[in-house]
């Protein structure tokens, strides 16, 4: 007979509970994990001495191509994101391109509704409230210590609420109907269970609105005549999405609700534009912000024997932060998980299954870069299939063969690192086939870490 105490493995259950507590408070237990897994890496680290001399870099032509493409991407991101805006902004306003550190907080339509930027409130100085991208209105920059940002301080990352945030102001907007007349309405954030992030709350002509038969019409902000103008007119908010009843016998659909899908999917956002007021322009102060980690340390990347292809071990002279990008001459090798004593485990893009914010660069002369959000669903050798969301219909139509780069994926994984060539899948349009370069054996790379003295 088995004793009762032996039949009830309290220790095992305690370990499972401990794992749950660990997942709930990951920061508390992070050092423990670094040491436990780091100790297990000691054997491969010793074994790495017999893996041969690390290679320095790829061939010169490839490096030149990656360098050119990265420079082209940066240039086109700026051109595309700054273009269109400024039409109704005061001329002396200055626009600043900011990276997105993280997206979060579920808002209307179940989509994220808050962004944290890679600039602090203090860096942005005397800024305007609206946040744009090209001619698209994205949301509103908060003020530290006020409202939703009540706990924020001036040196915290600037917080943006998107138009679908429950605290976002209602927008006065309109669309041009088929007969050329304008239909005006008020947009407000939708509920999280609604089919789209924004909904039309109040029409100037409900009768005409009920007769609307088109979807995907562009919705623009309108200038207000009375009171304080928070949003200038002429900015694109998104496209309409009609909700109603299908009628029999080919009759028109009965429209009962109208929603608006934002022009840019929040999860795909890598960069946004913030406007600094030119009225009381303070002298520019050069900040070396810790939010935009750009310091690179040298490291050696080894293939882990037998691990899934695309899993590597990294050895550096300093501790490596979690999520740090590992780069070799502009080529993104993967993201690192830091361990003790300067070692880290690296998962390549193809072997990862995490969500990525990405930039797709079409060939030259075919428009601006496309912001994507997606995750790898399948890998076969050096080819990864990425399931993506984000691009608008126009962008989708011109999505051909191009190049894939990282978008903003947190503090230590900035945008514009080259991943590989990409082409839409022949059979499924929401799959992107990404061909990454094959690199084998130990090699010298760089890891992006925090600035030292900030």
């Amino acid at each position, binding site marked *: 007979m*088995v004793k009762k105490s*032996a*039949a009830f*493995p309290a*220790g*095992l*259950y*305690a*370990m*499972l509970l*401990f*794992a*749950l507590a*660990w*997942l709930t408070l*990951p920061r508390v*237990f992070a050092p423990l*994990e670094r040491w*436990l*897994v780091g*100790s*297990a*890496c000691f*054997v*491969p680290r010793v074994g790495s001495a017999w893996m041969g001399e690390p290679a320095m870099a790829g061939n010169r032509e490839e490096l030149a191509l990656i360098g050119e493409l990265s420079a082209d991407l940066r240039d086109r991101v700026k051109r595309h994101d700054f273009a269109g805006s400024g039409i109704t902004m005061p001329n002396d306003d200055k626009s600043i391109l900011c990276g997105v550190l993280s997206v979060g907080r579920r808002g209307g339509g179940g989509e994220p509704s808050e962004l944290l930027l890679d600039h602090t409130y203090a860096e942005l100085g005397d800024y305007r409230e609206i946040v744009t991208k090209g001619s698209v209105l994205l949301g509103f920059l908060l003020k530290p210590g006020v409202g939703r940002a009540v706990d924020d301080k001036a040196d915290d990352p600037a917080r943006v609420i998107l138009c679908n945030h429950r605290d976002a102001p209602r927008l006065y907007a309109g669309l041009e109907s088929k007969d050329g007349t304008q239909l005006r309405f008020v947009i407000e954030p939708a509920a999280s269970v609604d089919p789209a992030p924004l909904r039309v709350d109040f029409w100037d002509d409900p009768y005409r609105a009920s007769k609307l038969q088109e979807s995907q019409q562009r919705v623009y902000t309108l200038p207000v005549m009375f009171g304080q103008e928070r949003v200038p007119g002429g900015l694109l908010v998104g496209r309409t999405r009609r909700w109603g009843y299908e009628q029999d016998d080919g009759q028109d659909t009965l429209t009962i609700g109208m929603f608006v899908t934002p022009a840019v999917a929040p999860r795909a956002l890598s960069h946004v534009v913030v406007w600094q007021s030119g009225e009381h322009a303070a002298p520019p102060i050069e900040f070396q912000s810790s939010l935009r980690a750009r310091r690179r340390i040298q490291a050696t990347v080894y293939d*882990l*024997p*037998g*691990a*899934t292809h695309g*899993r590597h071990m990294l050895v550096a002279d300093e501790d490596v932060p979690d999520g740090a990008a590992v780069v070799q001459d502009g080529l993104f090798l993967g993201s690192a*998980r830091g361990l003790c004593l300067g070692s880290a*485990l690296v*998962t390549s893009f193809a*072997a*990862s*299954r*995490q*969500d990525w914010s990405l930039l797709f660069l079409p060939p030259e002369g075919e428009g601006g870069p496309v912001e994507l959000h997606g*995750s790898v669903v399948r*890998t076969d050798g050096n080819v990864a299939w990425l399931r993506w969301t984000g691009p608008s219909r126009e962008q989708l139509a011109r999505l051909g063969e191009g190049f894939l780069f990282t978008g903003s994926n947190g503090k230590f994984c900035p945008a514009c690192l080259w991943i590989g060539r990409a082409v839409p899948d022949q059979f499924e349009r929401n799959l992107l086939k990404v061909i990454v370069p094959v690199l084998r054996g130990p090699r010298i790379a760089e890891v992006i870490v925090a600035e030292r003295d900030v």
Partner: protein
Amino acid sequence: MRRWFWWFLLVPQGFLLVGFLQDLGLPPLDMAVLTSLYLAWFAQRSALPFLLLGVAIGRTLVDEATLPVHILVIGIPVALLLPLRALFVAQRWLWQAVAAALLAIAIPKLAGLFGRAFDQPSVSSMLDGWQVVWSALLVPPLLSALRFLPPFVAFTEPTGLLKVVAR
């Protein structure tokens, strides 16, 4: 103390070794299936929590999810199979093969579930039919050998050291 040293030194490296052998052309086998069946049916109950920790550390080397996720992914099937140990005193291979196949299905499914719940998706959440078949075929003979070899032998319960009864 020495047995723990060998456990934490060798078992995590076993995950790398199994993958290395697969690269050489051997059949796909999930080391997590092998070790979790050993923990559930052969290992000393009192040692289970830290044996589980050693296995989870090994899986963290080859999979991008974090250590606590692996503790849950391996620990939950072990906790469910553990009460069945009393019913399988004879350690018949048929039951081991069935349990190994179930584990080869349950572990990726749990990895997918916890990956979604804790935002840590990983490549091991993909169910591979061949892995299920090979687990059912290879785990019983491998276990019958492994539980007599270090570091496993030091943690095997006396009943687990009995020879397989062929009926």
